[in-house]
């Protein structure tokens, strides 16, 4: 398998598919459109099956990077890919979500070829983000995902699509530039852009200790010195992506305007860039700064959970509701990450995977409603359960998982994160639990308003339950929600050892910088 360059193949296959689609397929009639959809489905499915080889070939006990590929790139940069226990689950999630996205766009009738090509480019970029082991390469994929998403929202969106697309792009760009400058500094400080050292190399960024002596900048004492500044730059970038309060305002607009497939990708995958970035860079590379800033980050996460949940209560539109719900859910993730102990980190990663599946399911459900009634206003529905029992059941499962019902994947992530956070900041855990209570409020309320009661609206009297294609989209996600809820070790066995190793390293650094720790206390 080593010489097959499996990882490169998985990164490039969708890109090649997009090039073929854009370059070879001609015409815009129904037959050509169907061909474009079929071809995109073929490519994304093939990518998914290829990624299964990664899963079977991966040794979860080994916390090092596996499937490593390394080659010269441009002027001193490296083309370096690899996976560890944290990135593999996200890569699998990506490969799993994209065929669903293609299927979810089956009824699309305008500019289908371009849509599918952009979706494929986006898949390559997202897989690249999770697979790259060079920070410049990471940035290329990270930023490269913006343009296809910008176009997907701008061209195929509804409502204020242009506004939403620009807001999405510019907010992300602010974060990206902060990241870029920090990256340039890191590269010149450490003398390498590789994230991890591999055979025959001196050291990667993970082995480099960035300076953390305090200094004064413009009259302000920077505790943790350079590390804190770098941490802040990374924080801006990833907090915009996650999104954390107060960097979140682009998300509701983007979700409200984006076509369903783009919303699924955005919610399920691109929001994970932030959490993944924190785990890949902020925590292991700036341990001192993480200790300095942890309380700040946990406080912001807490605000995100409570504030976003409260705002979610007031939403009149399903998609905007799901956006705020995402912000609250991702609050658990960031809270867990910066609590940085075993339970909290396990919980954070699990919560990211769980949220990826849940939010995909929820947006697909919103898409079903949008297809049938051309609206996602909550007040446009009511009493749907009588005519759409299967659909109502699936949506109930997703909403209960958001609330954190035991037996669903949502429970495991939120519960672990709260336990972990409780050990370092009990006040935050208390607040997060309050957020869960509010989530039960909006979750059950919105369910009541859409599905329960009597079916009064004339235009909904003939509404059909989900058909076979829609069921094929939603049911696998529902099954995953339950499966991960009942048997969470299936996922946590993958990332557990990597997180253990990361924590061990963190402890080592903390021990070697005891003076600093004492100073902090």
């Amino acid at each position, binding site marked *: 398998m080593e010489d097959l360059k499996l990882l490169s193949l998985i990164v490039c296959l969708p890109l090649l598919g997009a090039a073929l689609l*854009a370059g070879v397929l001609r015409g815009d009639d129904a037959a050509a459109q169907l061909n474009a959809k079929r071809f995109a489905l073929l490519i994304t499915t093939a990518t998914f099956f290829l990624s299964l080889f990664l899963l079977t070939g991966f040794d979860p006990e080994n916390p090092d990077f596996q499937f490593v590929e390394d080659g010269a790139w*441009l*002027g001193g940069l490296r083309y370096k890919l690899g996976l560890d226990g944290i990135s593999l689950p996200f890569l699998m999630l990506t490969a799993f979500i994209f065929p669903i996205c293609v299927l979810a766009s089956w009824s699309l009738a305008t500019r289908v070829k371009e849509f599918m090509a952009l979706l494929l480019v986006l898949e390559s970029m997202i897989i690249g983000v999770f697979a790259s082991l060079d920070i410049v390469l990471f940035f290329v994929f990270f930023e490269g995902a913006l343009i296809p998403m910008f176009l997907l929202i701008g061209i195929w969106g509804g409502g204020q699509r*242009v506004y939403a697309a620009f807001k999405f*792009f510019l907010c992300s760009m602010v974060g990206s530039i902060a990241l870029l400058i920090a990256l340039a500094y890191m590269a*010149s400080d450490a003398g390498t852009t590789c994230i991890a050292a591999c055979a025959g190399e001196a050291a990667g960024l993970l082995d480099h200790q960035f300076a953390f002596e305090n200094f004064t900048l413009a009259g302000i004492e920077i505790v943790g010195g350079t590390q804190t500044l770098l941490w802040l730059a990374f924080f801006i970038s990833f907090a915009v992506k996650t999104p954390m309060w107060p960097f979140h305002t682009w998300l509701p607009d983007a979700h409200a305007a984006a076509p369903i497939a783009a919303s699924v990708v955005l919610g399920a995958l691109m929001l994970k860039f932030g959490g993944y970035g924190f785990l890949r860079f902020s925590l292991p590379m700036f341990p001192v700064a993480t200790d300095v800033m942890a309380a700040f980050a946990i406080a912001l996460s807490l605000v995100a959970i409570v504030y976003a949940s409260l705002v979610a209560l007031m939403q009149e539109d399903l998609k905007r509701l799901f956006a705020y719900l995402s912000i609250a859910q991702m609050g658990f993730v960031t809270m867990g990450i910066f609590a940085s102990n075993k339970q909290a980190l396990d919980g954070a990663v699990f919560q990211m995977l769980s949220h990826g599946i849940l939010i995909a399911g929820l947006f697909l459900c919103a898409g079903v409603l949008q297809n049938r009634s051309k609206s996602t206003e909550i007040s446009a529905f009511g009493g749907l359960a009588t005519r759409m029992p299967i659909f109502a059941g699936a949506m109930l499962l997703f909403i209960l998982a958001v609330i954190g019902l035991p037996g669903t994947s949502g429970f495991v992530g939120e519960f672990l994160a709260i336990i972990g956070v409780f050990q370092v900041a009990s006040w935050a855990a208390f607040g997060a639990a309050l957020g869960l209570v509010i989530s039960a409020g909006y979750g059950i309320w919105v369910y009541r308003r859409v599905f329960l009661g009597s079916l009064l609206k004339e235009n909904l009297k003939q509404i059909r339950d989900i058909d076979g294609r829609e069921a094929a989209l939603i049911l696998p996600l529902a099954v995953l929600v339950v499966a991960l809820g009942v048997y969470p070790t299936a996922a946590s066995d993958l990332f557990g050892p990597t997180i253990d190793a990361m924590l061990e390293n963190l402890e080592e650094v903390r021990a070697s910088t005891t003076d600093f720790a004492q100073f902090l206390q």
Partner: protein
Amino acid sequence: MNGLVPALSTLIVGLSLYAIGQLSLAERIRALSTQICAAVALGLSVYVASASIGTDRAFSGALIDDPLARMAHSMILGATAVVLLISKGFLIRRAVLNFEYPILVLVAAAGTIVAVSSGNLLITYVGLELCAVAIYALCAYNTRSPRAAEAALKFVVLGGVASSLFLYGIALIYGATGSIALTDITAALAAEEGVGLIGGIGLLLVCIGMASKAAMAPFHAWMPDVAEGAPIPVAAFVATAIVAATAIVLVRLLFQGFEPLMAVWRPVMLALASVSLAVSAIGMIGQTNLRRFLGYALIGQLGCAALGIGAGTEAGVASAMTHLLVFGLALLGLYAFLMTMERDGQSVSKISDLSGLARLYPGQAALLGLLTLSLAGLPPVAGFFSKLLVLWATVEAGHLVVATLAGIAMIVGSFGYLWIIKVMYVDAHEETLDLQSGPFERIVLFGAAAVMLIGAFPLVGGFGVHEASQAAAAALIE
């Protein structure tokens, strides 16, 4: 001396063609003057790129043939050839082509060729003026266009001011150091304790004069007007060959002549860079004319190159050279496209004319989009990497604040570039656009976009451009 070949050949070819044309000796040659000039430029470009290595000096150091000069010559001649090839169809359609046009372009190129390899301030001045006079004439080339006349007039006045500032700076430097040869100036400056006031003012005037010629803000006022008013091929020539060459001249003066005064000119360059990036970013927003937009875009790209120069290091110069080449190529592609835009037989250049391009001409829109992304510095295209190199060098040299300011300007600037993509892909078209693409326009558009994309691939290694820039920078700084 090989270093004389490009300048001499271009001048000889240009002047002979002029004689032939004036005397109406050979109608066939007269008619083919554009192709002849393009072929000469292209051949020389390839010849220079593959010429010997090492450094050579002639006329007691007044002309220097080093990797920097050769890279600059190759870039200038390459851009000249491309501009000549793509402009013929356009000028014929506008019914303004005559045989002087390519000769003026070639003479202007010869001027910059002399200037970039000059080791003597007066020779630099002569080269730049040779170029400037030809360019003034080219700007007003379309005598029926009042916009062109306005652009040319502005260019003449501001260019004249820039030249006189430069000349005055030379005089002051001569007064302070007793020489106009770069090597002697360096020696004199290094020997003296501290910076003499006269020498400092002289350096400042030289910097301002050159910045004005290279369209760096706040001395950029002529650029948007020239970009909008001058005939498109001329604007393309100015935006690529001329300003890039001027920036390279500045590199040579600063690093070879005024190296001991780095503490003086480094902040000046960084300030120019920051202001240019800011002016460009703000100027691009809300622009309705594509040509004016490109003028502002160019100012930002030059600001980025100035950032690399202002870093004051070898890596900085190398990144600036790479960036000059990358954005020059992207601009050539964009201008090649701009020349083909027509409606009802009239050349059009409003941004709104691009609306719906992705539906009408999906292939061209995609290529145009790639070039725009490259100018915006977004991955995965080449423009990202050259900007990354510049930022990298700036950060490495310790100018974190300036790098951050530049980053903010890039965010604002990305809005302007993205707007073009939005217009092409999102907006619906109202009137159809005719694209009068000849073979050369297509080749240049496609080639530029392909290089932007493929250059960033693994295994291609950026076509060795950055290695060439590094060699040029290394030879310059030693």
